[in-house]
């Protein structure tokens, strides 16, 4: 058939209605191109691969492909005893190691049902909030890079360096700390630690203003992010979003307030939610704004921790650390508010072994990323980059 030969050229669309009737349709659409974005792409934040169907610069569909950084976290856990899992949790969301350890420690302590010293709780919250600021600085800085602004990134990393130095001073490592143990801490904080943290807080406050003026208020930045990748609150809840992503959609949901753990109920802080004045609720700019405002709240929490922290008299950071962790048979799910959302650990114990029968990590990045297909439909390629950046994924946690 001659028409079918033409159809092979791609300019004509052929639909068979019945055996003899063939409908030919002049197709003015350009040919769709499959664009493999990643795993080696500068703005997929690691080894994420997005397979995009593109019509010119318009993305008709983007499907995330995962697993390039899969390290069998959950299987490893089944072969390591409970305290031994702590270093593995560092490597989930490697930008927020303290928060991961915190969530894991809460889960195991809930399973063991042990009380831990009050000073330990304060130190845990303080280092976790420091780590939250460090993590948000990376998120904000790399978001700047995604949109072409390089300088804010280096400003962010300059300030993050001070946090890493502090945490290194406390734990001995810059990113993978192994500091928060089941039932306590590896070490007490150094004697001048609180003074230095106070100095950092005083140093960092003006820097957030500088960052705000340089990036968040920038006309081009706002134009690139406002109204892009809007996620309505109900859809976000249905997807199971959490953390700054969910709050960006206007849902006031923060586990530190809604399912409080540790000493958070005693502390005074706000849960920032976009009001729709500076941004459209649920767009990329809202998510960015939530992160920017959260850093300020974390600073408040840190200051309160320094003020309220009990003294060192008779304090042993390992006093409640069990010699041998062998929980009763049962299961537990505990969760904590990580910089990227809800990190939960589901742990099952058979009551005989010192190793968990099952340890599942509920990753916030993985869940947040699952909405990629919805968010990317019909967006331009530069907007797709803006959306990925606003989701703020860490592939270590997505793939586990």
């Amino acid at each position, binding site marked *: 058939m001659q028409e079918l030969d033409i159809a092979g050229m791609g300019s004509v669309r052929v639909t068979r209605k019945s055996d003899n009737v063939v409908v030919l349709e002049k197709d003015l659409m350009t040919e769709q*191109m499959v*664009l493999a974005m990643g795993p080696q*792409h*500068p*703005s997929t934040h690691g080894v994420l691969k997005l397979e995009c169907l593109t019509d010119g*610069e318009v993305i008709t569909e983007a499907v995330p492909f995962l697993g390039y950084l899969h390290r069998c976290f959950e299987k490893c856990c089944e072969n390591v005893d409970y305290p031994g899992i702590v270093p593995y949790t560092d490597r989930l969301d490697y930008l927020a190691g303290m928060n991961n350890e915190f969530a894991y420690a809460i889960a195991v302590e809930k399973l063991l049902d042990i009380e831990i010293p009050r000073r330990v709780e304060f130190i845990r919250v303080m280092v976790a909030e420091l780590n939250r600021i460090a993590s948000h600085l990376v998120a904000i800085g790399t978001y*700047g*890079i*995604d*949109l*072409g*602004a*390089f*300088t804010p990134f*280096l*400003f962010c990393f*300059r300030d993050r360096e001070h946090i890493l130095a502090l945490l290194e001073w406390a734990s001995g490592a810059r990113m993978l700390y192994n500091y928060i143990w089941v039932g306590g801490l590896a070490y007490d904080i150094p004697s001048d630690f609180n003074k230095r943290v106070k100095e950092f807080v005083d140093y960092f406050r003006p820097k957030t203003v500088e960052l705000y003026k*340089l*990036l968040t208020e*920038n006309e*081009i*930045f706002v*134009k*690139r992010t406002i109204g892009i990748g809007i996620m309505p609150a109900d859809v976000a809840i249905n997807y199971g979003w959490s953390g700054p992503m969910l709050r960006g959609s206007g849902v006031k949901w923060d586990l530190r307030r809604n399912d409080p753990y540790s000493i958070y109920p005693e502390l005074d802080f706000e849960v920032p939610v976009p009001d729709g004045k500076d941004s459209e609720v649920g767009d990329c700019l809202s998510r960015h704004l939530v992160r920017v405002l959260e850093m300020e709240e974390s600073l408040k929490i840190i200051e309160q921790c320094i003020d309220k922290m009990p003294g060192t008299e008779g304090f042993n950071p390992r006093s409640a650390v069990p010699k041998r962790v062998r929980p009763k048979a049962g299961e537990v799910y505990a969760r904590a508010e990580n910089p990227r959302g809800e990190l939960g650990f589901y742990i099952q114990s058979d009551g005989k072994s010192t190793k968990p029968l099952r340890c599942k990590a509920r990753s916030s990045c993985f869940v947040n990323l699952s909405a990629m297909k919805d968010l990317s439909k019909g967006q*331009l*390629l*530069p*907007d797709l*980059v803006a959306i990925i950046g606003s989701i703020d994924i860490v592939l270590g946690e997505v793939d586990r």
Partner: protein
Amino acid sequence: MILTPLSHISMPLLMGNNLNAWSEALVGFNLFGLPLGLVILAAIPLVFIALYSLTYGVYGERKISAFMQDRLGPMEVGKWGILQTIADILKLLQKEDIVPTSADKFLFVVGPGILFVGSFLAYAVLPFSSAFIGASLNVGLFFAIGIVAIEVVGILAAGWGSNNKWSLYGAVRSVAQIVSYEIPAAIALLCGAMMAGTLDMQKITLLQSGSYGFAHFFLFQSPIAWLPFLIYFIASLAEVNRAPFDIPEAESELVAGYFTEYSGMKFAVIFLAEYGSMFMVSAIISIVFLGGWNSPLPNIGSFALNDWTNGPVWGVFWIIMKGFFFIFVQMWLRWTLPRLRVDQLMYLCWKVLTPFAFVSFVLTAIWVIFVP
């Protein structure tokens, strides 16, 4: 003919018109029938361009960005890392010259060449001083505007020849961008040409000399000249693919745009062409609006600053300084602003810059006709 010994020329004379005679003597210098003098004379700006591109362009960009970002920048090779660029070029020279198997070999190789030639051809009509201009065309400005468009061909050849989807995106974006932005840029330059009444770059510059220094520059000669000046500056940023209009090579979206597949010396050539273009547009804006090689200093009574700081050698100093100033502003913008989106870029060109360019064109025409 033998060269006039330099010892005969005293310092004030060197800055006066005697350099002209000196260069004419050099042009006439033949050895075995070969016009060696001419070659030497033509080589001077080329050496400058190379030195500038290597040391100031790349090194300056790195140091300035480092200064803005609270870093040190290159510090290892030589004092303050001065030799870093030379080390980088040596490294690039040693690299294997890779042509991807599925690439269109001819286009892939020819693309960087066209880019390089296109960006450096415009240097021919730039008057570096009253005594030196590569080719004194009577349509110099027109030539400069036209020759920049050749770069588009090089970018398209590089992008298409690479057979890479990112390169193709970069090339298509780049062509759309450069062709669009040529319109406001050319109209803005036309305003300057109208005020001068000529397209000859040397004459445009000469018309801006006078004892009041900067007051004679076209930018300060009419109350609306700042508008075409601003329009040309913004459009020139887009023409040389600098931030915030660097979408053809947007590294966070298109990896490296049209030169994703390039490495080694071909990459270096593209890189040099970019820095060459940066100086070229900066020189054009200084010539048309800021008096080119004229000293900006005015004569104040008997304190004849303008007379003292004018002359062929001073001219080279002034135009290079003015060019460097605009390059600095380009770098400043690059390290401050995020990138625009493709449609926002086109919006800015067609709905903002082009209408305003027409407005400034009409106003300048009225000014030129009715105000003597």
